[in-house]
């Protein structure tokens, strides 16, 4: 079916197989049907895993030998940091799809993704600051890790603002995609800042060469929390994208009706 998200004049032309496979998911009707079945499962899984993870992390996991109970901030901070970077990688992939294949659903998803990614990054910065004051002795320092994550936060905000700044949504999406791809150079800088330069922020505990420098009684609840927050992140972004698709459809129907009423003389 051809919804309000038409693919433009090029849509009818024969396409190579790869392009056709990608455009299968660009069909808004099929997207709504598939995600409609998925959404209840996704919400239920997110809430169940989060309930388990949060209870395990906040109540049943041990304190750290020198951080004490403050270590529990990490169970929010680390998943939010991973989501901030993983989500931005997702935004970059959507931007490539948008720029090369002119994938309209990728545009809509990117538009709905960036406020959620900005929220995750803000939570990462806020929880990190709350941890830093009692542990380091300062709320904030301008070391390479903290500064590059702040830049990541501004990139999320910039993308959210830029795609909404144009009267023509397609031009907004194009500009946002270019900004997102240029900003992607920051993601490896965030990840490797603690290895390339000496920073106040500690190096990676989980994703490092050799065994994780984290006891399993702390590591497992962290991984469960990460899965829970990731499912929640996906559910929120998908729900926003579904709402955006339906909004466009309503607007197109209203437009069509207005045109019909104009055409029939009263």
């Amino acid at each position, binding site marked *: 079916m051809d919804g309000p998200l038409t693919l433009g004049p090029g849509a009818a032309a024969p396409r*190579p197989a790869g*392009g056709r496979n990608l455009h299968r998911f660009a069909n808004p009707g099929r997207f709504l049907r598939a995600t409609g079945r998925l959404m209840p499962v996704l919400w239920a899984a997110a809430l169940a895993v989060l309930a388990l993870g949060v209870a395990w992390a906040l109540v*049943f996991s*041990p*304190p*750290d*030998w*020198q*951080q004490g109970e403050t*270590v529990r901030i*990490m169970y929010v901070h680390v998943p939010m940091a991973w989501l901030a970077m993983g989500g931005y990688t997702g935004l970059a992939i959507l931007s*490539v799809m948008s*720029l*090369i*294949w002119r994938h309209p659903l990728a545009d809509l998803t990117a538009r709905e993704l960036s406020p959620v990614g900005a929220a995750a990054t803000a939570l990462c910065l806020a929880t990190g600051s709350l941890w830093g004051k*009692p*542990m*380091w*002795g*300062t709320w904030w*320092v*301008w*070391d*390479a890790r903290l500064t590059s994550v702040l830049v990541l936060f501004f990139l999320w905000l910039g993308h959210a603002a830029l795609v909404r700044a144009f009267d023509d949504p397609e031009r907004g999406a194009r500009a946002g995609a270019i900004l997102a*791809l*240029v900003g992607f*150079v920051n993601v490896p*800088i965030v990840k490797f800042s603690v290895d*390339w*330069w*000496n*920073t*106040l922020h*500690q*190096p*990676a*505990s989980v994703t*490092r060469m*050799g*065994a*994780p*420098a*984290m*006891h*399993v*009684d*702390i*590591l497992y609840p962290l991984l469960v929390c990460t899965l829970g927050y990731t499912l929640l992140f996906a559910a929120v972004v998908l729900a926003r994208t579904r709402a955006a698709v339906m909004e466009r459809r309503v607007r197109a129907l209203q437009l069509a009706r207005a045109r019909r009423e104009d055409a029939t003389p009263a």
Partner: protein
Amino acid sequence: MTRKKRRLMVLLLAGLGLGTATALTLTAFQDNLVFFLSPSDVAARHPGGDRAFRLGGLVEAGSVERHTGADGRPTATFRVTDGPNTVSVTYAGVLPDLFREGQGVVTLGKLQPDGSFRATEVLARHDETYMPPEVADALRRTGHWNPSEGAAPPAASWNTAPRQGRVGG
């Protein structure tokens, strides 16, 4: 070449150019991006006493002395080491909770003519180990680790150790 292929090529080329430019910029500003100098950096570069900089490393075991200054403020002297080199530090003020021998610290201050470092700010640096108290106690009791000597032993030797003698849940 289809339009899509051309757009893909343009994108790849732009990405390559941007990546190279970023890598070159970061390499050029390498010295400005470090948050602190280690005692070996200080020994190699001899930063002058007129500029404040950050000195980072581990607090040497047995080097911490705490006094009360003439004005009633707590003062501390300790040595910061990175293995081959050591710098002694004096600091007037309250030390962070995590400060202890064997802990990483980052101090801000100026070098004195006698080669010591007068700090105006001391931050504790946490390393990447996360360990329940019972496991840390067990490592200390069995002599596998003395926290005031430095970093914990390889993680694989303790990160699945059972938490024995734990109190409560």
